[in-house]
């Protein structure tokens, strides 16, 4: 993995508007800060190699190398990534809460992980108005306060970096695919530090097709919704083509085409719909509003899910074959679209010392 410094990060990511604001470069040093959904560089730094560049999911990501560290195998072009099982799930009796997005799987799993000391801290993402605000949570009772989808891009990893700095060593994280990819790079010890240990114990990835630019989204909603009244967002399955915003005074519908206009450019280059480098990935199930899709990817992910089921925090069901097929198609399409776009712009597998968005086995690109 090629690791450079903040100057290159500024040129390759921030200046090219590829930054998604995941927070991976924030809270490591005084130079990067998150504010209102964007990452800013306050001053130039002189380090030739920095964690900021090493962790960034938008520059020089070597997929085979990362996959090798996480799964012990090269990157898979399988639409859902590497997995041990794909099932449906929902919160069990011990964990059922309200205001969850679908089946409440993520809230249940993280509540279990904190209750049973599988994690010493959970890095979660809450919401202030439209702004996604990360937090370090140690009380299992608080996990439910962070339930439901946020839609605006979140600097969750800023809180993760703070959790590491505070000395937590078994951190549970709930993250979007870009954040999971950044985490996977962090966990790969890219700067080859001696005495390195993986500070995570459970990475729960979310399904994501795009996020929204906080500032653009706020402008879109101005005058239509009183932002402080918002309780929850949802995008019902097709053919609705709307975003539903639940408030105290009823539900407001915003046409999805308008909402999509606030998606940052960066999301167009994202090939990962299902958080392929997580331990467990969770999303919706089309047509089953009370259920989640759960993709178990790693042994530690499987152990956590099994234990949560056993303890009554989680319930599993088999996934109908046609649902799985539709999910694979959607994920595969996103992967193809993004890789095609990036390849078309010549920012994949670049040579001659030019820096690349991602690197992967060239034959994997041949099929798209």
């Amino acid at each position, binding site marked *: 993995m090629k690791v450079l410094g903040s100057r290159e990060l500024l040129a390759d990511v921030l200046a090219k508007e590829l930054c998604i604001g995941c927070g991976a470069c924030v809270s*490591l*040093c*005084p*130079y990067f*800060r998150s*504010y*209102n959904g*964007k990452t*800013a*560089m*306050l*001053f130039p*730094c*002189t*380090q030739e*190699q*920095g*964690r900021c560049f090493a962790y960034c999911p938008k520059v020089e990501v070597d997929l085979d190398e990362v996959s090798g560290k996480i799964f012990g195998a090269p990157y898979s072009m399988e639409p859902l990534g590497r997995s041990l099982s794909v099932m449906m799930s929902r919160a069990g009796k011990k964990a059922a809460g309200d205001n969850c997005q679908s089946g409440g799987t993520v809230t249940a799993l993280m509540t279990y992980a904190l209750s049973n000391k599988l994690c010493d801290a959970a890095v979660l993402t809450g919401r202030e108005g439209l702004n996604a605000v990360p937090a370090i949570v140690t009380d299992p009772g608080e996990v439910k306060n962070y339930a439901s989808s946020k839609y605006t891009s979140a600097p969750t990893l800023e809180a993760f970096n703070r959790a590491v700095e505070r000395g937590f060593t078994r951190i549970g994280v709930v993250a979007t695919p870009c954040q999971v990819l950044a985490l996977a790079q962090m966990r790969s010890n890219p*700067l080859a530090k001696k005495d390195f240990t993986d500070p995570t114990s459970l990475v729960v990835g979310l399904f994501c097709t795009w996020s929204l630019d906080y500032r653009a989204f706020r402008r879109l909603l101005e005058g239509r919704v009183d932002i402080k009244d918002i309780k929850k967002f949802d995008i019902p399955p097709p053919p609705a083509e709307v975003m539903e915003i639940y408030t105290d005074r009823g539900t407001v519908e915003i046409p999805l085409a308008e909402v999509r206009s606030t998606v940052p450019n960066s999301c167009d280059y994202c090939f990962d719909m299902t958080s392929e480098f997580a331990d467990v990935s969770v999303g919706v199930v089309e047509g089953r509003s009370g259920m989640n899709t759960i993709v178990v990817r790693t042994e530690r992910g499987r152990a956590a899910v099994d234990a949560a089921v056993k303890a009554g925090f989680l319930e599993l069901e088999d996934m109908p074959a046609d649902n799985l097929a539709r999910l694979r198609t959607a994920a595969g399409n996103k992967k193809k679209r993004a890789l095609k776009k990036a390849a078309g712009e010549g920012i994949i597998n670049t040579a001659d010392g030019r820096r690349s968005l991602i690197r992967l086995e060239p034959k994997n690109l041949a099929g798209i």
Partner: protein
Amino acid sequence: MSYLFDTNEGARYLMMGNDAIVRGALEANVNVASAYPGTPSSEIIENLSKASQKRNIYVEWSVNEKVALEVAFAASIAGLRSICAMKQNGVNVASDFLLHVALSGTRGGIVLLHCDDPGALSSINEGESRHFARMIELPLLEPGDFQEAREMTRWAFELSEELRSIVIMRSVTRLSHASGNVTLGRLGTPDGKARFKYEAVPGDPDSGPVITMPVPPHHALLQEKLKKAIAIFEKSPFNTYTGPEKPELLIITCSACNLYSREAVHLLNAQDRVGILKIGTTWPLPPKLVARHLAMTDRVLFVEEVLPFLEENVKVIAAETASEVGIKKFYGKNDGTMPTINEMNPDIVVDAVKKILGVEYTAMDEGYAKHAKEHLAALAPVRDLTFCPGCPHRASFWNLHNALAMDNRRGFVCGDIGCYTLGFLPCGFSTMKTSHSMGSGIGIASGFGKLTQFGMDQPILAVCGDSTFFHAAIPALVNAIHNKSDVIFVLLDNSGTAMTGFQPHPGTPLDAKGGPLPTIDPADICRSLGATVEYADPFDTDETQKKLLALMQEKGARVLIMKQMCALSPEKKGKKMFEVRVDQELCRGDTCGCSRLCTRIFRCPGLVWDSNRQAAVIDEVICAGCGVCVSICPSGAIKKTEAGR
């Protein structure tokens, strides 16, 4: 300062030019003195305010130069003698009033004393105020040395009364701030009773209303005064010639350049070949005197600072008298012999005379010069142009920079005039992007704030010091608020006119003598204009940045007062709020996660990089104990404890 009040006529003192001017004014029994501070003029009023403890003089630090001149003018038409001091660009501020004073005429002697700053040693312009004398048709005097500074000031009051006109006198930095021998004149007892007489018909110079209308006859009268001035200047002892009867080269010079010219001729040992005509009455020029000296030679070199004022005016006389004095070869600024920027010095004059006369002279052997330069460089520590240790402006710009960077919309700061003008440099994190005249920051910002209809979406901030606020920022702020301009006006309130030496202003409770005055609160003014006013302590960096970020989310004119006293203010100086130290075990230095933020970016002179230990260290001698660096250290290695007072 005892020499200012020494009654021994003929006593000799080594005096700064500005002090010689003060002595001259005291000898002229000046009654009223007013000014707005500005280097290199500020000592004039400071010393007159000391004199006011012993003599009946009213001394005032006025809100700006225009008002200062109006205050002095009132004294004049009430029959008193007055002086008004300012720096070069102050004349621009006062010029509108000056134009009308020229027409209306004056009564008691009144002198406008401006100190120009060639080379802009303490300015952000190299303005030449002499041109106002010609443009507005007023007599202009330029003392050629320290003795003349005293004598000419004293005489300027008499001249003003004789002409019934304000008299402009120009000094320059090297005259105002350098020192020379001055022999004292007689110090009288000030008298004067103030009464404004307006009972006679308009136009009566002694007791009519003082109005410029009807304009044409007043203008004609003004031009008569200038003719009278010429007649006086033809015989003035301040215009002197030194040199042979038929010099090979005539230097025509004025002001401090007189000293450089004399030194150059002396160095070249060319006293027998070069004559120096030093002119003290530079506008209107006495044509007969000039023509008489032009007739002595064929070659003329002009030595003056900045623009060719003397040069061009002499050339007009030369053209008009060419049939009598003959055709001359002129050397000066127009032919490129002399520079039209920066300060003059003896070396430049030596070079010019060498070339014209074809003489050989080496001031310093080249090898020796190089050697000396190297040695000097090794002796002098490298010093940035920066804010003092503990300066609130460093913290203010830190907050402004970081808030603007986090906001991430390419916002910027329009700057103004004060120590904080350095905010465009790395010491202010290059946050300030414009800087012009007093009050222009908010004026320019007011304009920027109306460009949203053309797609401008950058946050716009203006900074302004407390003294500058009163001087010229208020009309621009009124403009911004009235026109609903989207700007944030940040008042950098350091409780005094810090840059020029803590002169009081309307926000401070003291007069020029140190007596009590009511204060005017800028916040009250802003609120009464309809602006929301918030306060922040720039030393509380987190809170200040939060406030700035929140203000940037709003629209319309917003005011944030960042209040923290200047580190050098008499009330604060020497008192540390905190004892600060660096825990060198915790200091991360050059590694990822720090990259020497404190000594590479923040760069307070009180923080030093110890290259042996590879860690930051506090320079206890100069650390002012503000404690701001504690909040910027990413590893918490900088510690503070309350200082015992």
